[in-house]
């Protein structure tokens, strides 16, 4: 079985550039999106010894170094889709580029795992859009997967599904504690590097990539209204709080 995990490299701390209206990634430590490591662990649990685990990411070339660490978690292959034409993609353009990458690099995939959201975007839209581009079924908020059954959690229910592959599964952030490196892979990962795939290889339609391919645009970034002149309580705050609790009948 071939299992693909999509991984996003995200800034550890989020800075927003108010002029370009994009997330500012310069000078910030980059990490693997934590929820993607939860998705990777779900893939890892499912994996048998003859299964292949492949990571696909999209981002600037600088993301390759961060992605290298995926080999320590036992990934067999790590790809980074990177091209100037991909810059500025919204979720739809990103889903298109990822779909092109998957079709090109792992056309015979069985399951795609994704994290439910990224800590720097949190739109949660990519799974549905990617599934549409690939024409395959998908589920989000997945809590556990085995070869027979998927369990996922909606707002009110636990749902069970039988499935056939290919399928895309977006994993809930509380499904497990995330994948961890192991000693065997720490040794064999030495010297393994992320393979960067540019658009000469990918041959994605540049009209559908990056800013060109984006169907949503950020018109402006505004500061949320915050009253800063609030009068704060500097003394006997605890007393007032206790009195309030008494008043409303809590203590």
């Amino acid at each position, binding site marked *: 079985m071939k299992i693909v995990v999509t991984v996003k490299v995200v800034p550890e701390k989020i800075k*927003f550039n108010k002029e370009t209206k994009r997330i500012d990634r310069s000078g910030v430590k980059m990490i693997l999106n934590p929820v993607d490591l939860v998705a990777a662990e779900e893939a890892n649990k499912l994996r048998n010894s003859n299964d292949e685990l492949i990571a696909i990411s999209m981002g600037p070339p600088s993301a390759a170094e961060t992605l290298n660490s995926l080999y320590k978690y036992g990934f067999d292959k790590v790809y980074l889709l990177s091209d100037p034409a991909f810059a500025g993609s919204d979720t739809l353009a990103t889903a298109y580029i990822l779909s092109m990458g998957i079709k090109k690099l792992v056309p015979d995939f069985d399951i795609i795992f994704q994290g439910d959201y990224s800590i720097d975007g949190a739109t949660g839209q990519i799974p549905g*859009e990617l599934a*549409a581009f690939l024409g395959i079924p998908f589920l989000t908020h997945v809590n556990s997967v085995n070869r027979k059954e998927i369990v996922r959690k909606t707002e009110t229910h636990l*749902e069970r599904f039988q499935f056939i592959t290919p399928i895309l599964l977006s994993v809930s952030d509380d499904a497990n504690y995330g994948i961890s490196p192991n000693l065997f892979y720490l040794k064999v990962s030495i010297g393994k590097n992320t393979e960067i795939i540019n658009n000469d290889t990918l041959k994605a339609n540049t009209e559908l990539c990056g800013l060109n391919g984006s169907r949503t645009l*950020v018109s402006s*970034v*505004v*500061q949320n209204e915050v009253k800063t002149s609030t009068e704060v309580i500097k003394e006997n705050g605890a007393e007032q709080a206790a009195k309030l609790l008494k008043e409303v009948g809590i203590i």
Partner: protein
Amino acid sequence: MRILVFTGEHNDAIRTAKEISDDIITASFKQCADCAEFVPGKKITSFESGVSFIESVEEKTSPDAIFFSDETIIRESASFFAGKRRLGLISHSNKVFIKDGKIIGVVPGWENLSAEVFSLTKPVLLLLNAKEKITLNKKSPEIIKVDSSLLKFEGSAEFKKNPLENANVVIGIGRGVRKNLIPKIEKLAEKIGAEIGCTRPVADSGLIPLNKVIGDSGVQINPKVYIAFGISGAIQHMSGVNANYIISINSDANAPIFSVSTLPILGKAEEVLPQFEEWIKNIS
């Protein structure tokens, strides 16, 4: 401007649509036999039936915009629909307005910033944060069985509600609380019958279980009193708080949470907590 609204159990998308237009058609992903203004609802259990439901109502109504309530099955259907039709989808907005004839969604972002996002395609697709519940008539739930060759729905079970949702008092723990203080706060919670919740970074660091996260990516709480220790009040957290009274303890006089607090108490959590315990002992 005609707006088509798809919702399940929440009212926010309908209310937001009404703020900018009078021509609104509502369709429900849940059964809603008594709601006169609704297109006859279906109980939808998979994205495939969701997408075909969206397509059929869209075709009959030709809307300028479609608002989706951000609930699991609706978001799944909306994002697949957007991908299939190559339409822009504006994510989890909490406000919408019209500027130069364009619908703009206000998407809460980071560092207390919001992005104003518009779509280049028609109909404009927009997901709206879901907070306010609507009451549905569940008397005659007609489950529409959709045969899917790809995914077979086996069944579902309602799980135990998160006790946070219906708690009368909630104590929230933020990053301003030191690790060693957490057991003491838990003791206080026990004493006053409060549930413990936290912000996402606290849960991510492993100090408190993930199912205790309050906010956008967690639980919505509706307590009488919310006591926030060391919480700055980022919009992602506060969007999950619907409390009659907020008591907040923070050492930063400019913390955004103070502006919405009944009692904004300036001070470090470790200093205020013992006083708090003392006064509760005295008064109760």
